């Protein structure tokens, strides 16, 4: 009787084994997978933010107070052009814009937009990048503020060289002219307000 019970038990276990084994194996694999050390990628989500913070500090230490405040408040910097030449005395230039002061709007990771401050006329877009040829960093781009600083340095340091390397296009190819005009309007408002504040603080100092 006992022998028969044991035999029946063995048969039942053998039958169940086939049913249970796959799920037991799966559970063990899952457990192992949960415990396994996955080689981590070196991506650090805070790295780019820290890089941008450092870039902002660097930009601030290089440009003047007005340019820094402009970038902080408006998100771009205006750089005056240095290549305009006045028409020669006694000659009338065919282009009425000859000799007129011009300027650039420098946006992060967008083309540099040249314009005439007196009329607000947009002249050109200069598409320029600063790709890193060195490895292993060559895959990503400069932080926003570094991109602005690189353009600022290249424009103020050697404007002609930068323009010769840039791809020139008519306005509106990448930067929406409406947006640029809006930015120019914001810039004029911003300058007016800054001037007003400056006068007010001078008046306060004078009164004291």
């Amino acid at each position, binding site marked *: 009787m006992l022998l028969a019970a044991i035999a029946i038990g063995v048969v039942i276990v053998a039958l169940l084994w086939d049913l249970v084994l796959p799920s037991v194996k799966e559970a063990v694999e899952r457990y192992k997978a949960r415990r396994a050390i996955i080689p981590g990628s070196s991506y650090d989500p805070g790295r780019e933010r820290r890089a941008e913070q450092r870039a902002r500090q660097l930009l601030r230490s290089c440009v*003047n107070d007005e340019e820094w405040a402009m970038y902080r408040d408006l998100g771009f910097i205006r750089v005056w052009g240095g290549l305009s030449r006045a028409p020669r005395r006694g000659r009338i230039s065919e282009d009425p814009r000859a000799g007129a002061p011009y300027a650039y709007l420098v946006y992060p990771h967008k083309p540099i937009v040249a314009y005439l401050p007196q009329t607000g006329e947009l002249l050109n877009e200069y598409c*320029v990048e600063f790709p890193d040829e060195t490895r292993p960093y060559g895959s990503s781009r400069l932080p926003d503020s570094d991109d602005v*600083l690189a353009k600022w340095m290249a424009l103020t340091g050697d404007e002609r060289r930068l323009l010769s390397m840039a791809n020139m296009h008519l306005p509106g190819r990448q930067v929406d002219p409406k947006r640029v005009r809006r930015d120019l309007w914001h810039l004029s408002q911003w300058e007016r307000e800054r001037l007003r504040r400056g006068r007010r603080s001078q008046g306060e100092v004078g009164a004291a």
Partner: protein
Amino acid sequence: MKPGHGEVLIAEGDVEVAEEEELLIREFRHQLDQGMWAAVPERTNVGRREARMIKAFEDIPRDADRVIFFPRAAGGV
């Protein structure tokens, strides 16, 4: 400037100390060989801020407190 990293200190030293100057020259040339541009931010006589592009170590003003290297410009799309 390094893409993805921002500002990275490459080397520092005093140009009045011969060994340190040598190190600075070596690093300067190495950066230019890698295709970087170099610039020194400075203030003009009229108080304007601008950058001076540097092509040779000798062009760096002796009193410059830093030289910034950044990737060479290229035409974008």
